[in-house]
């Protein structure tokens, strides 16, 4: 397997973490960050081995925490939990279907901030919380649900360009070969 699609995944995660600090669109009266790391984690979980999923969770989580005011490492476990659960069930998931990708992205978009909130509460950290978070979770779910199919299309295209192509089946069958002459 070529390493380029994996490197591209980490590069996009790096850019996505930085993009969260730059673009702050106002949705109605809420300010929700453009957080697409959960969608990337969904793709990694369904297409990469578990060690790569773990490395992506650690890299993306630490990048996000280093740019924020939160404790270092608070985002790693929620991201890895998403990737771990999906990786265990990847053989059951219709990963080629766009609607499955969208639903998984939406679920991951809600699960990640929810998991982070649980860890912050368990660690007794001071942070801003309130009923508005529910609406922000919904917005993040919709955002990641919309982005996830695009992530799959993009990285599948990168994989098709840089990865080895599967060998096409031929019509040759060794049991049907005509053997001429004496055996």
């Amino acid at each position, binding site marked *: 397997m070529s390493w380029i699609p994996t490197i591209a995944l980490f590069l996009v995660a*790096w*850019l996505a*973490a*930085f993009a*969260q*600090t*730059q673009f*702050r669109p*106002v949705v109605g*009266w*809420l*300010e*929700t*960050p453009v*957080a697409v790391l959960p969608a990337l984690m969904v793709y990694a979980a369904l297409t990469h081995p*578990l*060690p790569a999923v*773990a490395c992506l*969770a*650690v890299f993306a989580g*630490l*990048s*996000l*925490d*280093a*740019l*924020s*005011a*939160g*404790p*270092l*490492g*608070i985002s*790693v*476990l929620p991201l*890895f939990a998403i990737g*771990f659960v999906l990786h*265990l069930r990847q053989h059951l998931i219709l990963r080629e279907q766009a609607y499955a990708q969208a639903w998984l992205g939406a679920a991951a978009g809600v699960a990640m*901030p929810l998991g*982070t*909130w649980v860890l*912050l509460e368990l*660690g007794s950290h*001071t*942070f*801003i*919380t*309130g009923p*508005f*978070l529910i*609406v*922000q979770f919904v917005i993040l779910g919709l955002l990641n649900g919309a982005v996830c199919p695009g992530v799959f299309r993009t990285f599948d295209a990168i994989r098709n360009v840089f990865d080895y192509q599967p060998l096409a089946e031929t019509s040759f069958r060794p049991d049907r070969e005509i053997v001429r002459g004496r055996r």
Partner: protein
Amino acid sequence: MLKRAHYWVLGAVVALTLVLLNLPPLAAGRLRTGIRSLFLPLFGVSGAGQSFVDRASFSALTRASLISEIERLRLTNQWLQVAADQGRDALAENDRLRALISWQPRAPWKLRAANVIAREPTTWWRTATLDFGSRDGARPNQPVLTSAGLVGRLREVEPTQSQVALIGDPECGVSVVVVETRDPGVIQESRSAPDPDGLVVMRTLQHSPATMAGHHVVTSGLGGVFPAGIPVGQVVDTRSVDGGLFTEARIRLGANLNQLEEVWVVAP
């Protein structure tokens, strides 16, 4: 069914998370600085891109609009010069009166300009990152403000960048006083969504029936972080809480925290 490799990976990530969450503050700060350094090229590209966009927009301006803008700025500058002269006279008189009653003179503010290069990427805190670090004279707890009012204080300082805890963040409590009534209060952490109108909640230290909408709020100087007299905002409305023991007032901040670009840091 989990395989042995799954357990190893799961255990490794959980162990790493526990180690990171329990790191000593100094080690965590150094690790955070190291990871942030990976993003320095992107900060540079972002700044260059913003400069390019600004220069491109300038080239689209007409000569007439530039001339009218220069004229407007010239008049504003003249007005500000007169106001500054009056302020210097008042400050000198204040120093003389303070000396007469043996009070310590007020140290003038030394302001250093800084650009906001990043915002908080999550919703759990309210912070911003400045391109003003310890190499430029930044120190923790230095106040940050704009011409419109207080913004926050420096929370973490790195060699080339600093992180600002904005008003409304759990780590930025501000001791304030209502100018008209001299009622003291504290601006608390926000418990609601970041309000586009820039509203925060102030709780007074006692029941304050005289505080009403339209009153101005400035820093009181208590606590030693924010010097006295920095404008904070204006009272929007008030209500009694805790059975009338305290008054809560919603304050519209003077500074627009959602559109910060250039700020001033009060440096010694």
